[in-house]
């Protein structure tokens, strides 16, 4: 029964990972760039939430309404100012620029917030749970996170397949020169994609900060988990990313059930096993599903 509990907790944890990974998946899908600053940007969102809740006494769940647009704005500016020039440079430039950005932001956070761990206080919901039976209880907050994760991914998928801008993103992803001939301004479309990606990162970062203790270097683990979710699920598939997040969450929870020190290692090993035996991921398909 405790194993079933571990699996259940893992699935719920996977919802958070999927939420963290969705932005990474979206940016890669549209622009074919891997944002190595993705993890630390989630941590920036967590600090933003912490600052609003702890210092300005904004109610915990209201801070989300502020953090998402702020992060989306950062994403838009980041794309126009830094990432579009890097994409135009081509070659290794996008990787090097986003890596440089990750190091800069991580160390700025260290300078301003110190290396101490923080968390966003949410009050009663943090400990509320639904008792299934004597041994299994589902935390309300992890459940909310999971549902939000599924809803966000469904929303992103619908946006990409149905909306005019989403279609333009997929067109630009297929052939950016041809997209321009359709009147699509790639640079602006990319900026919108990154704004959406970072908006989702903002949401994920706040949930992360509510669930766990974080510090400036927490972005490293965040990036790795998001990346593992994307690869396990299969590149370019948002539903795959959800499945990848869930698989990673289960692996970590079951690993930790064996020995608390094995949680992260188990997740990494499952990732490496997928890489070795099913390198296209569990659900490989094109962005448009």
């Amino acid at each position, binding site marked *: 029964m405790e194993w079933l509990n571990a699996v259940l907790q893992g699935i719920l944890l996977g919802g958070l990972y999927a939420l963290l990974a969705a932005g990474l998946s979206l940016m890669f899908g549209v622009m074919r760039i891997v944002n190595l600053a993705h993890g630390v940007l989630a941590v920036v969102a967590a600090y933003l939430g912490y600052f609003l809740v702890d210092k300005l006494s904004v109610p915990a769940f209201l801070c989300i309404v502020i953090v998402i647009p702020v992060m989306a704005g950062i994403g838009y500016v980041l794309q126009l100012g830094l990432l579009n020039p890097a994409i135009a440079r081509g070659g290794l430039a996008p*990787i*090097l*620029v986003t890596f440089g950005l990750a190091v800069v932001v991580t*160390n700025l956070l260290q300078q301003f917030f110190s290396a101490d761990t923080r968390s966003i206080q949410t009050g009663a919901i943090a400990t509320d749970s639904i008792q299934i039976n004597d041994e299994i209880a589902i935390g309300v907050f992890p459940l909310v996170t999971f549902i939000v994760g599924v809803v966000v991914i469904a929303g992103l998928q619908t946006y990409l397949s149905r909306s005019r801008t989403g279609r333009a993103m997929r067109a630009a992803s297929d052939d950016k*020169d041809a997209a321009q001939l359709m009147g699509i301004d790639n640079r602006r479309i990319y900026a919108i994609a990154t704004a959406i990606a970072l908006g989702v990162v903002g949401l994920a970062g706040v949930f992360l900060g509510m669930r766990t203790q974080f510090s400036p270097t927490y972005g490293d683990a965040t990036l790795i988990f998001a990346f593992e979710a994307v690869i396990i699920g299969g590149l370019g598939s948002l539903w795959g990313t959800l499945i990848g997040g869930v698989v990673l969450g289960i692996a970590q929870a079951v690993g930790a059930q064996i020995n608390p*020190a094995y949680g992260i290692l188990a997740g990494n090993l499952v990732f490496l096993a997928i890489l070795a035996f099913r*390198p296209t991921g569990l659900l490989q398909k094109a962005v448009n599903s």
Partner: protein
Amino acid sequence: MTIQESATMPVKVRRATKSSWTGLAVMTPILILLALGPYILGRGMQQNLVILFSLIVLGTMWNLLAGYGGMVSIGQQAYIGIGAYGLVYIADTLGIDPFLAVPLAVIIAGVLSLPISFLAFRLSGGYFAIGTWVIAEVVKLIVEQMDVLGAGSGVSFMAVTELSPGRRIAYVYWLSLIAVVIAVAVTYLLMRSRLGLGFTAIRDDSVAAGSLGVRVTRSKRIVYVIAGMGCALAGSMIAANTLRVQPESIFSVEYSAFMIFIVVIGGIGTIEGPIVGAIVFFALQQWLSDFGLWYLVILGLLAIIITLVLPRGIWGLISGNGKIRLFPVGYRLVNPLERFSLIKEKAPVGDGGAPNA
């Protein structure tokens, strides 16, 4: 002089340039002077130079990966750690002479890097980068579970402590200087080889290179293994210099940040670049050491700016975009009538087809 003109005249293919002979003339006395270090310099200075030497080795290896092989790794700390732990384990636990233990540790890293490459090569671009990082994390997490390697708290390097400190520091210093010479020489010879020409083709266009018969994956794998061995060499230098190996620090992703900054700032894709970059990095690190982590903020910003506006780095600026070469790895056509004229090399062309991309 243009290519068309030279085609109608008798042409000679040359590798060395005037500046590369000058380079040899400059470098030989510097090397001799550095070799005399232990007789001239204090212990602290020698230990600092060992740090610089290890940075040069690391930068040179990372440049081999990215500048020639087109692979951005942020997981080379796996091999730094393997080299460091390998040295300590072989020398202390197995009781093998420390100076024999270094090459053994390097070989172990090389042997491990081969199967690892098969996993890492399933990914490309930015995902390859994070994949190598995950692999480094796995190596760290495994080491942290191994009591024989001191688990989470690490190990001390005891074998060399029998030597007097002065002698020990001098030996480590010389070892590190030799490591620099080996790393640079291996890169130089590799680039001058047939394989090296293939790497340049891969860097420029791996698909085209493949269609011309360059065995892309095999070439990349060779580079990856050599870079793993080189990083292990640097790792063993770091262990011998600090006498202490801890998993959290030796497997830190910061080493990857250092390597990337060194190569990007110095100049990617040249042999001289990482050397220049390591010196600049080391100077900034020392100079800004009183200001906490600001040096990493400044280096990160510098790396971003250089990537976007000065992709050939500081060495590109010094050398006038490749006119001066201390290490002649390319081929150049020379009109025998103008023996010392240098063909101006064109900067690599970006994706010119997409004006608004």
